[in-house]
C-alpha cells in the first residue's frame, strides 16, 4: 500500500460527508446506499465513523462530474434533466438555476416544446422525453416497467407499460446499451436495475448462462432456464459502490497500491467478494489504527443467537423502557411478557430463528410489523394472516386474521382490534412504525404515507394522510420499520437505517448506518 507524501490524513475520527449532486444514471437511493456501504467498509476496520451532512461544512464533498453544460447553469444539488448522454440543459421548473429552456428548441434532432410539472420535457409529438427511463416509474397514472422497440421504425425504443404496448408505449426513450434480440415478447436491451418486476416475474440477478457471447442476462432467481431471456445486465457497467470505496480510500489518505487484488489498485476490477484486501486494511490501519474492540460481550446465551434482522419497531413515547446501547446487555430481549394471555415473549427477531416446521402451525412464530408504546400502552401491530396462539383468540368470523392490533396495558392485553377501529381504512394493509409527537399525537406509518393518531380518541385523522418524503426528505420510500429513539427518528430498510434529526422543525437525514453494527452494536 502507499499513503500520500506528508501527513495527509484526518486528525479527527467522526468524518462527515456531503453528496453535492447526483448522476442521471442511477436512482438517488441507489447512490445514497452505495456511498453508505462504501464508507462502512472503511469504518468497519478503523475507529472512523462517517456521518452524512447537507452542506459545505462537510469534510468530504462528493460530486458527480458534469460535462457539456449549456448556458450558465449553477448546480445547487437539484436534479438536471439529461437530454442525451453528457449534455444537460437546465429546465426552469425548480431544477438547476441558470439558462432556462426557451421553447421551442431543437436538440439532437428533437424539438422540445414544454416542461411538465415533474420537470420532464415534452417533445412536440406529445410524448414526454428527456430522462432515460429508470424502471419502474409511474407517469400520469400509468406504471412503466420495460422498453420495447415494436411499433417504431427508427430504432429507438420506448418505455412501455406492461399492460398494453399499443397505446401506452409513447413515453420517453430508453437508455439503449445494446439491442438484444427480442425473443418471446420480452423487452430487451436496457440496463437491469435490480430488483425489478416484469410481467409478474421478479428479476434480481445476472447470469451468463446459455450465452456464448459473454453478455450477461437479467435473470429471475427462481428459474434461470426459461426466464433469463430478458434485457441485458450492466456487463459494461461499473459498480458505483466499488468506485466510491476506492475514491473514499484516497479521501482518507491512501494512495494507489501495487497489489492487483487490492481495492486501492489503480485499475477497476469488479468483484462480488469483500472488496478490502489485506493490503488495503494494513494501509488504512497504518493511518488510523484498527477498529477498537467492542466492550467485552456477556457470555452468549445457550440459545442460538437470532439472525440480526431488522427488529420490529419499538416506539417509546414515555421514558424509554430499554436502552440497547447502555449497560450490559444479555442479548436481544422480547417485549415484556404479560402473563398467560399476554403477547408472546418471542425475541424481537423479525424472522423465526429456525424455519417453522411446515407441519407445525406457523402461528406459533410471532412476527409483528410494529410494536409501539402509545399513551403508555404497548401496541402490537400485525398484518400477517394468522393469530398467534399466545394471543387472545377472537371469533374469526368477526375479525378475519390480519390488519390487527393488540394493546398491552401492563396487566392485561386488549384485542385484537382491527385497524379499522383506529380509523385506518382497508387501503392500509399494515402499520410499519410510529413516531410520538407532542400534544398526545402519534404518527402511524404504512408504506409511503403516515397518519396522525390521537391517543385520547384512539383514532387517526383520516385527512392527515401525508407522503413520507414530504416531511422526511431523504429516507427511502419503502422502509419497513420506523421508530423513535433518543429524540431521533429511525427509518429502516433491509440492513440499513436512515436517522432523521429535527433542526427548527426541519427534518434532515443526518446518518445512514447498519442496523447490526451501528444500532444493535452486534
Amino acid at each position, binding site marked *: 500500500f502507499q499513503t*500520500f*507524501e506528508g501527513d495527509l490524513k484526518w486528525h479527527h475520527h467522526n468524518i462527515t460527508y456531503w453528496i453535492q449532486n447526483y448522476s442521471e444514471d442511477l436512482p438517488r437511493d441507489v447512490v445514497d446506499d452505495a456511498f453508505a456501504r462504501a464508507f462502512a467498509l472503511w469504518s468497519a476496520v478503523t475507529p472512523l465513523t462517517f456521518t452524512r451532512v447537507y452542506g459545505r461544512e462537510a469534510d468530504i464533498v462528493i460530486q458527480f462530474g458534469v460535462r457539456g453544460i449549456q448556458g450558465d447553469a449553477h448546480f445547487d444539488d437539484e436534479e438536471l434533466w439529461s437530454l442525451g448522454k453528457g449534455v444537460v440543459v437546465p429546465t426552469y421548473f425548480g431544477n438547476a438555476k441558470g439558462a432556462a429552456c426557451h421553447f421551442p428548441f431543437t436538440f439532437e434532432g428533437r424539438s422540445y416544446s414544454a416542461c411538465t410539472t415533474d420537470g420532464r420535457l415534452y417533445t412536440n409529438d406529445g410524448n414526454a422525453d428527456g430522462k432515460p427511463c429508470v424502471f419502474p416509474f409511474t407517469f400520469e397514472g400509468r406504471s412503466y416497467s420495460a422498453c420495447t422497440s415494436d411499433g417504431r421504425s427508427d430504432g429507438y425504443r420506448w418505455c412501455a407499460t406492461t399492460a398494453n404496448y399499443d397505446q401506452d408505449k409513447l413515453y420517453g426513450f430508453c437508455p439503449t446499451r445494446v439491442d438484444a434480440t427480442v425473443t418471446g415478447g420480452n423487452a430487451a436491451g436496457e440496463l437491469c436495475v435490480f430488483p425489478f418486476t416484469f410481467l409478474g416475474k421478479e428479476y434480481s440477478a445476472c447470469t451468463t448462462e446459455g450465452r456464448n457471447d459473454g453478455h450477461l442476462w437479467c435473470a429471475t432467481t427462481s428459474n434461470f432456464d426459461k426466464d433469463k431471456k430478458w434485457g441485458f445486465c450492466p456487463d459494461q457497467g*461499473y459498480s458505483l459502490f466499488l*468506485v466510491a470505496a*476506492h*475514491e473514499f480510500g*484516497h479521501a482518507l489518505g491512501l*494512495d*494507489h497500491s*501495487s*497489489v*492487483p487484488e487490492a481495492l486501492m*489498485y*489503480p*485499475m*477497476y476490477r469488479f468483484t462480488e467478494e469483500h472488496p478490502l484486501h489485506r493490503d488495503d486494511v494494513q494501509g488504512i490501519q497504518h493511518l488510523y489504527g484498527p477498529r477498537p474492540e467492542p466492550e467485552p460481550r456477556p457470555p452468549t446465551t445457550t440459545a442460538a443467537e437470532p439472525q440480526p434482522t431488522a427488529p420490529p419497531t419499538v416506539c417509546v413515547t414515555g421514558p424509554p423502557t430499554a436502552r440497547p446501547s447502555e449497560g450490559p446487555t444479555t442479548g436481544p430481549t422480547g417485549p415484556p411478557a404479560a402473563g398467560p394471555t399476554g403477547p408472546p415473549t418471542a425475541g424481537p427477531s423479525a424472522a423465526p430463528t429456525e424455519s417453522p416446521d411446515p407441519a407445525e402451525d406457523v402461528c406459533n412464530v410471532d412476527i409483528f410489523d410494529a410494536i409501539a408504546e402509545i399513551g403508555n400502552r404497548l401496541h402490537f401491530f400485525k398484518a400477517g394472516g394468522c393469530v398467534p396462539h399466545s394471543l387472545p383468540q377472537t371469533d374469526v368470523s368477526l375479525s378475519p386474521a390480519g390488519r390487527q392490533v393488540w394493546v398491552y396495558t401492563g396487566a392485561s392485553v386488549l384485542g385484537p382490534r382491527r385497524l379499522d377501529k383506529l380509523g385506518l381504512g382497508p387501503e392500509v394493509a399494515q402499520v410499519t412504525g410510529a413516531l410520538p409527537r407532542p400534544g398526545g399525537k402519534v404518527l402511524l406509518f404504512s408504506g409511503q404515507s403516515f397518519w396522525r393518531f390521537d391517543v385520547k380518541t384512539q383514532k387517526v385523522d383520516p385527512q392527515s394522510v401525508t407522503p413520507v418524503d414530504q416531511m422526511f426528505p431523504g429516507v427511502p420510500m419503502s422502509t419497513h420499520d420506523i421508530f423513535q429513539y433518543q429524540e431521533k427518528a429511525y427509518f429502516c430498510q433491509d440492513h440499513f437505517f436512515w436517522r432523521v434529526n429535527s433542526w427548527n422543525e426541519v427534518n434532515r437525514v443526518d446518518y445512514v448506518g447498519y442496523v447490526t453494527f451501528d444500532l444493535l452494536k452486534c
Partner: protein
Amino acid sequence: FPGERRTNLTNRQLAEEYLHRYGYTPGAELSEDGQSLRRALLRLQRRLSLPETGELDSTTLNAMRAPRCGVPDLGR
C-alpha cells in the same frame, strides 16, 4: 470513468499520454532516443506489478486501456 480511450491514437501516443497523465513522465513529450520511454515503462510496470520488460508489450498496453481511477500513481 474518464471516458473510453480515444481509439485513433497509435500505441506510442497512447503510452505517452498515459505515462504523462498518471505521473510517470514529467513532460508530455518523451525524447526520441527511446531511453526515457523505457525508463518510464519500467517505473509503470514496477508500480502496477506487471512484468518489468521496459517494452510497450501487450500486457502493458492492455493495462493502459483498462478503466482506472483518475488519481495519478506518482507525484503529489
